[in-house]
């Protein structure tokens, strides 16, 4: 069963002559363990796709289902619960709450879900440890470097039993080595069975995905085919 399934999603902003379609009839399925990159220039609708998949916005038409649940049939409270339990979200910036420590930021969804503070902290520390941030657990965001902050954000997005990881330019403000580290983490998370969707305009980031989907003017125009093994690459290059 697909973790994320979008069918016929259209999102229209504004009305009448001023109406703009950010997305038009978009279909997308993401399977468990799969990392999908959505590539497109600015204004192509890729971020809207992500906010709709993350229940932060409702499509004008079409149906979204996450883990088999049709979002249109869920109340706002149930959608919030879904975000707390199943969906992890990584933004480009404005990721962390400045008023909470790294560990508190990570355990935030669990705490919001009613997990006891102690258990939530334990889970948060574990997630931080996996990302190599155990020593920074009680630091506040302003005491962390950009790369560390992004890693904390990813830790929050994967804490608990996540099934869907959504990332919007997750390494946007980072240098390429730090960006690569972030993508490695996302990749590793997906290998654990989580479905991942990364939105980016950066081909190097997108190339971490199993499947790259190209989006233009709100439409999916193309996607990469199933990958060959890396050996073929060496042969191609070796022949030069």
């Amino acid at each position: 069963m697909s973790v994320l399934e979008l069918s016929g999603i259209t999102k229209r902003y504004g009305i009448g002559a001023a109406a703009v379609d950010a997305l038009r009839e978009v279909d997308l399925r993401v399977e468990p363990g799969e990392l999908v990159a959505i590539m497109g220039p600015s204004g192509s609708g890729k971020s809207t796709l992500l906010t709709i998949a993350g229940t932060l916005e409702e499509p004008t038409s079409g149906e979204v289902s996450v883990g088999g649940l049709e979002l249109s049939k869920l109340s706002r409270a149930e959608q919030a619960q879904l975000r707390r339990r199943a969906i992890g979200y990584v933004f480009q910036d404005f990721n962390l709450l400045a008023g909470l420590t790294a560990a508190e930021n990570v355990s935030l969804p669990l705490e919001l879900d009613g997990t006891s503070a102690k258990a939530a902290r334990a889970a948060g520390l574990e997630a931080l440890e996996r990302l190599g941030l155990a020593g920074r657990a009680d630091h506040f965001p302003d005491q962390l470097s950009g790369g560390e902050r992004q890693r904390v954000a990813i830790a929050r997005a994967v804490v608990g039993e996540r099934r869907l990881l959504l990332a919007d330019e997750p390494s946007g403000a980072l240098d390429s080595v730090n960006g690569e580290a972030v993508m490695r983490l996302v990749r590793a998370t997906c290998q654990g069975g989580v479905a991942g969707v990364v939105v980016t305009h950066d081909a190097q980031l997108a190339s971490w995905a199993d499947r790259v989907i190209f989006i233009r003017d709100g439409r999916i125009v193309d996607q990469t085919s199933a990958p060959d093994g890396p050996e073929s690459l060496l042969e191609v290059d070796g022949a030069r």
Partner: protein
Amino acid sequence: MLRREWRQQLVILALLVVAVAATTVGLGMVVNVEHSDKGYFGKANTRIDISNPGTTGADLAAARARFGAVEAIEESSIPVPGSVTPVELRAQDPHGRFGSPMLRLVSGHLPAGADQVAVTAEVGSVLAVRTGSTLQADGRTLTVVGRVENPNDLTDAFALVAPGELRAPTSLALLLDTGSALAGARFSPPVGTLAGFSSTSASGPAQRRNQALAVLLIATIGLIFIGLLAVAGFTVLAQRRLRSLGMIAAIGASDRHVRRVLLANGAAVGLVGAALGTALGVLTWFSLGPVFSNVVGHRIDPFSLPWWAVIAGAVLALITAVIASWWPARAVSRVPIVVALSGRPTPPQPVHRFAFVGVAVAALGFVLLVLSHHDNTAYIISGILATTIGMLLLAPLAVRLIARLARRAPVAIRLALRDLARYQARSGAAVAAGTLAVGIAATITIHAAAAQHADHSGAVGNLPSNQMVVWLDGNPSNQGGPGLSVATAAGASTAPSAPPPAAVASARRVVDAISTAVQAHRSVELEAAIDLNQTIPAGAEQGNDYSSLARPISSQGRKGFEFVTTPLVVTGSVLTFYRIPASTLSPGADVVTSRAGLGRIDVNTGPFGDFAAAKVQVVAALPKYTSAPNTLLTQRALAEFGLTAVPAGWLIETLHPLTKAQLADARARAAAAGITIETRSAPDDTMQQLREYSTTIGVLIALGVLAMTVGLIRSETAGDLRTLTAAGASGRTRRTLTAATAGALAVLSGVLGTASAYLALIAWNWHDVSYLDSPPYPELVALVIGLPAVAFVGGWVAGRTPRKIARRPLD
């Protein structure tokens, strides 16, 4: 940049308007709150009261011969059916040389001629008369022609006839101007007896100085308030501005460019805020005038505002706004542009230094207030100032403290409190402003409660305003307390008798009816002691036949007794009523009383009975009111002196102060049955009203300030809201966030405000701290618990989900 912030600018403008308006109204109040003594003296500086002057006018003539210009006010009384308290009837010249400030025509016209009378509103309702109706007084029928009042003492209740139209004056007040205060004291009227003498000369300048002092204080505190709110508002903008300004600086704007833009903005907001605030304040003051008149008990001139202070407040609002808006520009020129651009929250500064300074300054203020002894102006002003500033400096520490306490709280509350602690500049200023609003309200209310309490515990007051006594005796000449008069048959000696059971039963029925009508909370039957074996000689004056207490005195070698009080009798129900366990009464006591220092007391069994020394026990739990059962004869004394307890009256208590309508109804029922009621004679609800008003206004201002600052603070964390939402926060969590922010600020404001009020008042009353022994609990609860509760609920209601959470806030 400035256009984008219009919402924030509007909130800041509103904050300034509120601060300036509140200060203006506050100034109006302090100038007019002081009760002037013109209601008693008029324009004169000396008043001589003479009782039983007769009708010859000899006393007035003698006074004129001695002092020159003297104005006379003749007085007698009108009995009120069913009440022990009569109404005062005056003959006074409304245009008199001295007395004119004591009279004002409200409606109708002034009495002229022999058969006209004007009454105050109070008297109108007590006697149930209105313009056009008639009343019996002074041995004739008078027609009510108008409504009058004493504009300088609205509690003064009287009926007015034209000068010289009183046939049988029982007392005479002389108003005069005299250079020497002592000269008046030595005046001895040829006919009447000198009942009292008083002079304004001592209190006048002191009163004016007090008023100036109060104006200065309110002005000072109001100005701090204005400044704080401006700073609080603009500090919130500063962080956002820091980033925009960094950007402007990065593209090459000079510091001067930046500063000029911000100064212009600050000046515009300040100017509009000051103007609107002053206008709003003056308008509010004008419309509050009539209400306020009733609270302070005298008519006020709405134009009697201390204009210099009002203008100073407006100017300060302008200046503070300019300075506060310029601050970020200064910060940008000090902070490296890169840091400004990053817009990263700067880590909180350590607050311990602040806190230490705060404690030191507050302590200094305390000491200055103690040392001022109420009369060193410089000490008072600097003391109040230091106390206020000291408490305000503690605000950031309190914010930090509450954030630390929240470590174990649910995440939304924790986040709200952490944010407060992180953005101390704004939350500190918000708390400081709230503290000030609460502090002023708390000071007034605590002070009013203390004054009210002092009033109760002192000699003043026959009964509290929620009690009445129905006396069995129908004789209105007994002005308070029990009285049983036996009609003496001419020429025959007789023995007093207990009240006939039929009369008692009928009175009881009336009491029950009144209890039901006023929704009595509880009641108790009062008994008095009487010696049924005494003999009253023929021809004795009608008087009080109950046993009484007297104090032996000796004067010029002759021994005699001085009447002290007519005691009631200790019964089980009286003890229960006052929750006094019978075991606490000493078995050997004859008299139990709440009045300490009675000295040696004898029991007088009756007007023609014997005197015997009594053993007195002071029981503090007994009431202190003069007409309440404050002094009681024990059953032991009854047995010892051969006395009999007979029904004398009933004490009825309600939960709320009795209303005028209830009193009028009770009076009518009593009058119909030939018995009387006694109720509180001195109006005491003005202090109560003052307490309620100041608490309400303080809470409202604090709430307004909080609402606006919370709005500002939360608007700055819109980005957090997006992150929270993505992490799965429901609308509930977001509401909790706003509610917790508001609630926490309110708690801090309430606690700090009340604490600073107590600090200042303890210092002020250092010589007698017990003056503050009776805190106004309901009002304090309203400030410390009610305010946060309302703020929390308000935050909950206002913190509803923004429609577009997924969109990033415009930057």
